[in-house]
């Protein structure tokens, strides 16, 4: 099943199960979704539940949050999460903080979803990863699926969740197909929020990643196996709350950690994971934590520069080797 179909089926099933769930965003209706995630939903549920909005993120996000205050369960789609910056006031101040400020009187069962991170050649304003920014904020839950199983299970969980959830998809993963079991296809399938998944068990080094980088980490793990290093790949799935127990248990087993993310390095997800290990498993570390992140520059347009600005499989392999032997040079070969 492709990730696109997984998301579409999850939306479809949740909308048919609960009439309070509705979808709104730009081009979600007649255009069948800017990336075709909401294909067929307008025909099935009608324009009252699949709303094409004007181009006014602050406005329609606010409207969604207000609807959630009064008991509806909106799913707000951002064409990309870059556009969520126009609405970030509502995501943080109106949605994330409301349950706290009202002492539990007003909960906000809303989902903000859309593609996040770099695509291919779309330039600086369309390529930023927002995982770190949203995950810093109390009151939000932040999820980042990788496979179709993740996409289905986590989106269903997000829609059923009574709190605001930021659901970070990835444009380049939409078309990728993953094998799914019958259990995943069942309409009651749901994944727990806050649990990471160990995609591949190993004993020499732990590699944590989320979204597209999980695929890269798995490829890196294959290469490392051939060189005699057994890597354990953890698919974070949930950035907030971060599954610290799983990560720490893994590092206590392997004693070495490489964190991988696409976003900017400073104050990123990797920085938080590193701190968690230092706080809870310092004695178990046999090497400094290696942090792989996107380059500390706005995303360039030129294809070769873009490749240099985003982590590649070789970068993960080199970092893992450094964590194991501490003898590889830091820089990439041209």
């Amino acid at each position, binding site marked *: 099943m492709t990730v696109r179909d997984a998301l579409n089926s999850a939306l479809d099933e949740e909308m048919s199960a609960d009439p309070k769930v509705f979808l709104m965003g*730009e*081009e979600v209706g*007649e*255009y069948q979704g*800017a990336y075709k995630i909401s294909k067929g939903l307008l025909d099935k549920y009608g*324009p009252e539940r699949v709303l*094409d*909005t*004007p*181009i*006014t993120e*602050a*406005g329609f996000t606010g409207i969604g949050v207000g609807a959630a205050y009064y008991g509806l369960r909106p799913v707000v789609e951002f064409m990309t999460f*870059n*556009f969520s910056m*126009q609405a970030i006031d509502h995501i943080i101040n109106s949605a994330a903080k409301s349950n706290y400020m009202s002492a539990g009187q007003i909960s906000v069962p809303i989902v903000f979803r859309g593609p996040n991170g770099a*695509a*291919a*050649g*779309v*330039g*600086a*304003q*369309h390529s930023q990863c927002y995982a770190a920014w949203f995950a810093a904020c109390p009151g939000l839950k932040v999820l980042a699926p990788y496979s179709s199983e993740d996409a289905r299970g986590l989106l269903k969980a997000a829609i059923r969740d009574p709190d605001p959830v930021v659901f970070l998809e990835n444009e380049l993963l939409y078309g990728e197909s993953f094998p799914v079991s019958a259990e995943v296809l069942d309409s009651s399938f749901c994944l727990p929020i806050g649990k990471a998944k160990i995609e591949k068990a190993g004993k020499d080094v732990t590699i944590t990643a989320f979204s597209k980088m999980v695929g890269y980490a798995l490829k890196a793990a294959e290469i490392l196996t051939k060189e005699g290093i057994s890597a354990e790949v953890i698919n974070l799935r949930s950035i907030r709350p971060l599954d610290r127990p799983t990560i720490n248990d893994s590092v206590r087993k392997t004693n070495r950690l490489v964190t991988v993310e696409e976003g900017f*390095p400073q104050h990123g997800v990797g920085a938080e994971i590193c701190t968690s290990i230092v706080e809870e498993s310092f004695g178990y570390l046999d090497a400094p934590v290696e942090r792989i992140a996107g*380059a*500390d*520059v*706005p995303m*360039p*347009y*030129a*294809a*070769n*520069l873009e490749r*240099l*600005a985003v982590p590649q499989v070789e970068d993960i392999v080199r970092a893992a080797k450094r964590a194991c032997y501490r003898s590889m040079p*830091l*820089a*990439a070969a*041209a």
Partner: protein
Amino acid sequence: MSFATTKFAHPIPLSTTAARSNDHKPFLDPFKATRFLGSTHKFRFHPLTNSNHINIHRRSAVVAVSDVLKAKKPKSTSNLLITKEEGLELYEDMVLGRAFEDMCAQMYYRGKMFGFVHLYNGQEAVSTGFIKLLKKEDCVASTYRDHVHALSKGVSARAVMSELFGKTTGCCRGQGGSMHMFSSEHNVLGGFAFIGEGIPVATGAAFTSKYRREVLKEADCDHVTVAFFGDGTCNNGQFFECLNMAALWKLPIVFVVENNLWAIGMSHLRATSDPEIWKKGPAFGMPGVHVDGMDVLKVREVAKEAIGRARRGEGPTLVECETYRFRGHSLADPDELRDPAEKAHYATRDPITALKKYMFENNLVSEPELKAIEKKIDEVVEEAVEFADESPHPGRSQLLENVFADPKGFGIGPDGRYRCEDPKFTEGTAHV
């Protein structure tokens, strides 16, 4: 050219019942119009008496004009609107825009350019009509559909093509891309991916112009800014905020709405409570003008007035240009939602063909002169592609360049010196 009313019978999906009938009162009663914020112009509107004959969705007559343009009108119907030189200049600019965009489509499908590319085919009259009246020091701010604005403003075709190919000889060294065309030499302020983003930036440029004249006492600074954006943008908050401030502070800016009726697949009529965008001007205290954006001469007449107003310090104008994009929203858009009859209708109103017809009818030019221009433009565009092809890709070290104006912003490295002073950093091999 007469202000003909257009009529077309295709159905446009409407989810609102647009009460555009003759019982519609103009926003402002012309007889009660008073001075706005000290402005010396009264805003008079043509009463919509002939609205029964006009399709309720589009009008091509100019419906809201300031006094000065109205006074000009009798003169223009008897004389020609342009001289031969002006006609040739306008023709060449529009043909350049068209040929360039067509070449972009070819190059995209051959993989030479990538990412998001938004083409301007069909809207050339708006860019040419406005930008050819500007000086080099005047500023232009645009959206992601910015190739032709950059070309009209004077950025060379080779620089734009190289930028699209991601080469280091591009106008932004390959770092910006299709949606981010900047040129400080020609005062092209971008190139923004988010719609509505360019409007406050343009308003700021206009603010600078006024500041330089009044605070820094540069008496001859009468630079005007023109902001281009689409119909979808007119529902965005930033647009309204800037209309307010520009009128409040009487900034030398012209807000040009390229209303091509579609925002990706969202019809303007489905997204907007009152689709007549020009009316939003008077609500904020500036004239709102609607003009046929497929006719470069009409656009130019309105542009002259609006730019003149701004240059004289009389404040902003909102100009709504009714136009159409012949291609989809971007080269990745399958363009399934637009009615083929609508597309066919606008194809007959191609601005380049219309200008050609006008110039022939008025014996301004001959066929061979126009053919010579077309040939010249073809050569310019071919040469631009060759230049872009042969240009080098950016080097590794360029990745870390231009992040800051003062690269000390990268901080201090482990050796205690500023990172930017480390030669490995500039080679692009240092660890950041």
